[in-house]
């Protein structure tokens, strides 16, 4: 059986209406799931003996700027058994900008989620250590959001005075 068909069939069977969209663009399979189902889905994909998506390669986000549901969180997970990388998307549908953390499933998601929090301000609920990563602690803005000016916000970063 084709790998993609197998994954889609299994996920559809288990999650049914929570699966919002399945797309196969340029040979990349992408599942869009309801936000609250992300951890159960990850758990299923990781622990199903036929799938075994044991590695989380990336967590990032998209800022759609003008859409009502502004943020989409994107995961890339890999299965060594199938030699296949799957993309999962979850649209954030409310103002809280939060989503359940997947660190309980994949340890590697820890820093990816921290980075996503740092750059987009998405809060990962139950993340063990959700701190800023690149920007200094205490920085109040999220640089990769579309409304953040390219040259930054004057006065927002600590900076040493000129030496004599």
């Amino acid at each position, binding site marked *: 059986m084709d790998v993609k068909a197998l994954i889609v069939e299994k996920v559809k069977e288990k999650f049914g209406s929570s699966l919002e969209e399945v797309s196969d663009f340029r040979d990349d399979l992408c599942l869009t799931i309801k936000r609250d189902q992300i951890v159960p889905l990850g758990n299923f994909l990781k622990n199903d003996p036929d799938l075994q998506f044991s590695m989380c390669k990336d967590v990032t986000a998209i800022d759609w700027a003008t859409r009502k549901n502004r943020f989409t969180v994107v995961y890339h997970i890999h299965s060594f058994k199938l030699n296949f990388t799957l993309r999962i998307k979850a649209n954030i549908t409310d103002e809280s900008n939060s989503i359940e953390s997947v660190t309980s499933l994949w340890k590697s998601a820890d820093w990816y989620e921290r980075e996503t929090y740092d750059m987009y301000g998405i809060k990962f609920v139950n993340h063990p250590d959700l701190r800023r990563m690149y920007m200094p602690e205490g920085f109040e803005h999220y*640089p990769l959001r579309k409304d953040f000016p*390219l040259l930054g916000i004057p006065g*927002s*970063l600590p*900076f*040493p*005075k*000129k*030496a*004599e």
Partner: protein
Amino acid sequence: MGLEAILQKDGYVTTTIDAIVSWARKSSVWPMPMGISCCAIEMISAADPKYDIARFGSEVMRFTPRQCDLMIVAGTVTYKMAQVVRRIYDQMPEPKWVIAMGACTSSGGMYRSYSVVQGIDQFLPVDVYTAGCPPRPENLLNALMTLQEKIGKTKARDFQNRPLVDLELAQN
């Protein structure tokens, strides 16, 4: 005809203390290699046998600021790193000099962005700027020679009573 020839003829030379001191200073400028990104590779090349920065007395790259006269800032300085650079600069004993190596350090270079300091002269007194992305090792040597010229003109009184300043943080 070198110094030996004069000494053999007359047995002494006349000079000033300032001239001797500045000559000694400029002939052994010990750099603090502040290699933060790609420019550092060219700075390292300048120290290798082909370019041989030792010809100018600057082969002693010290990784502690306490033993340095010159900070070569080689690389992109971000706002986060700026505080570190400034702190290391503050730890260097007087007299001290700064070379801004490369486009990033001199002006932010191609990183016209929120995270990169648009020129380290905003928080350090730069003596020589070096153009290039990255500058060739020859260019760094040229910067060093320019600096030596500058040091050669200094007098002891130029460095007297410089107040010790504490590191203060302002906002960008």
